[in-house]
């Protein structure tokens, strides 16, 4: 095997750490008290969450009529939010599963928090179809269970039902993948903590893990299997989400480009969210040696490539519309770029295609404030992409007599803010109580157990002394 220190790649962990340093540094934020900044952030996100709870409670009590929907625009804000949040989740699975299969070791710095992000984003996403049902207490009707109405079964030919299965499978598999990854780290925390609630909780959750190599051997096999399962799963989930649209006959939705277009967009938006969270977390939790500039650089390059795929898809959509010779299809795209919602369309193009081109410059990728700003811009752009796809395709359909306008109500905006509140509250709580970096993975991936000859000699002398 090549000496890891002679490799041209930058080191995964900077600051000349030993294995024990990794444990100490990553457990440190959990062991010191919460900072004022953390309390402040939690207060803000819990307030947003509370606003969302009130809004959701109100709209369930009064009905979906509190939204700005009408007979023509039957899907708007909530489905936009649903697709947005599912998309955010996909980067987490990309980082944890796809990059694992490709043996990209830099993923170890971000995979734990990206997986947590996936989990919370999918929870946020799930809320929207649930409240859109109007009577969410009957949500179990989407499951095929024997009932006294026949049994009347669910319609397995409907993409909306595929979505139920895809999203719930995705949530469960992501949760299991995340938890399996956490077990060895929970054992590390258990063995570091003195008697008390932290040790008791970690003791139960780490399932009696003792570091046995026989268990590690099976664990690695199962981790690989889960990565192998999660990879096609993540593609299937957003493919099915796109089929909610593509299998309809609405111009602007009924197109075969949707599955790859949606998957690329999902990963693009998710990477932007990972960067947003990571740039803040590395600073606040003092993890600069673990989430290094080179990690940010790698994610920027991934984000740029995904952004270019998304840009290509925007162009292809236009080309297909005009090449199809279908007047309705052509009208939808002209209407997108020049109609009443053109501001949303051009916001989308600017945020997703034009501004991310700055990432070609090394100096931009090296500047954390620039990357942070760009990630926010992409998040906004990707939200608008879903809004543009959904609302502009619906609001002017076949018959001009049924054309209508759409504007969200305060209830819908409050629900969106509430979902952000839920997401950030969950993420902040996760940062406080779980190791944000997979210790057991980074120790192995960064070759900390096999120090270079010089350092090793020093260690030996220190030991002898």
């Amino acid at each position, binding site marked *: 095997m090549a000496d890891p220190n002679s490799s041209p790649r930058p080191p995964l962990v900077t600051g000349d750490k030993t294995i024990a340093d990794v444990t100490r540094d990553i457990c440190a934020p959990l062991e010191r008290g919460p900072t004022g900044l953390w309390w402040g952030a939690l207060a803000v996100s819990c307030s947003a969450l509370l606003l969302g709870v009130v809004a959701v409670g109100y709209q369930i009590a009064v009905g979906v009529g509190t939204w700005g929907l009408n007979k023509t625009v039957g899907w708007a804000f909530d489905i936009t939010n649903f697709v947005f949040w599912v998309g955010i989740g996909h980067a987490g699975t990309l980082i944890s599963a796809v990059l694992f299969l490709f043996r990209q070791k830099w993923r170890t710095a971000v995979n734990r928090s990206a997986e947590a992000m996936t989990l919370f984003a999918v929870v946020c996403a799930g809320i929207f179809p649930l409240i859109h049902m109007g009577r969410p207490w009957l949500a179990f009707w989407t499951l095929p269970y024997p009932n006294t109405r026949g049994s009347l079964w669910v319609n397995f030919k409907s993409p909306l039902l595929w979505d139920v299965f895809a999203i719930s499978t995705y949530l469960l598999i992501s949760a299991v993948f995340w938890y399996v990854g956490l077990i*060895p780290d929970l054992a590390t925390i258990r063995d570091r903590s003195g008697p008390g609630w932290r040790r008791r909780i970690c003791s139960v959750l780490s399932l009696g893990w003792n570091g046995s190599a026989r268990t590690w051997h099976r664990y690695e096999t*199962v981790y690989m299997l889960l990565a192998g399962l999660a990879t096609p799963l993540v593609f299937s989930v957003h493919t099915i989400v796109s089929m909610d649209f593509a299998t309809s006959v609405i111009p602007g939705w009924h197109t075969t480009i949707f599955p790859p277009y949606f998957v690329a967009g999902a990963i693009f938006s998710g990477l932007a969210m990972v960067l947003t969270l990571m740039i803040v977390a590395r600073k606040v939790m003092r993890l600069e040696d673990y989430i290094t500039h080179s990690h940010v650089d790698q994610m920027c390059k991934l984000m740029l490539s995904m952004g270019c795929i998304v840009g290509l898809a925007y162009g292809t959509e236009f080309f297909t519309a005009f090449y199809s010779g279908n007047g309705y299809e052509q009208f939808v795209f002209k209407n997108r770029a020049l109609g009443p919602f053109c501001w949303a369309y051009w916001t989308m193009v600017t945020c997703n295609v034009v501004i991310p081109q700055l990432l070609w410059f090394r100096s931009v990728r090296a500047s954390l404030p620039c990357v942070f700003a760009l990630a926010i811009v992409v998040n906004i752009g990707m939200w608008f992409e879903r809004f543009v796809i959904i609302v502009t395709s619906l609001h002017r359909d076949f018959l001009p007599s049924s054309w209508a306008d759409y504007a969200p109500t305060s209830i819908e905006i409050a629900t969106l803010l509430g979902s952000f509140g839920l997401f950030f509250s969950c993420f902040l709580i996760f940062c406080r109580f779980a190791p944000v970096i997979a210790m057991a993975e980074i120790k192995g991936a960064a070759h900390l157990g096999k120090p270079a000859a010089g350092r090793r000699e020093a260690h030996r002398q220190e030991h002898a002394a």
Partner: protein
Amino acid sequence: MNDRILLATFAHEDDLLAATAAVRAAGHPIVDVFTPYAVHGLDRAMGLRPSRLTWVCFVCGMVGAVGMLVFQHWTAAISWPLNVGGKPWNSLPAHVPVAFEAAVLLAGFGSVFALLWVSRLFPGRQARLVAPRVTDDRFVLAVDASGPGIDRATLERVVGQFDSLAIEEQTPRTGGKASC
């Protein structure tokens, strides 16, 4: 039952790997090795066979896919046939996505539960650690010393050249000092 176990502690994974291979080559039975992370190549050094959990995954996945295809066929074509847009009762392509999701769900849960089952990991199990730092930064090789031909001096001769930090003896029944 192992009466005596000798524990050799190391600070580096390559020392541990070399020592494990040497102990195995010398014919001494290895009880287990305890490491803070998955050390690559340790399965070969210990002579572990590839895990059969992949088969559990495959079988669970197949059960999920076939079971869900059959169930969809039964609900959509036999139990209560519903005409949806004039499509055939059993429109197989439309049944693929849900069957795929069921396959992934069962395969994932099946392999994780099988892992927990065969590794005897469950909530409430008390971890018995051979050394307190084994989940932090220490690598421990546990050798069965109950048979003839191996004692502390023999093991020291075999692993001594690999920088072992300490060699100590632990009997499983009395040596629960680090369990918690």
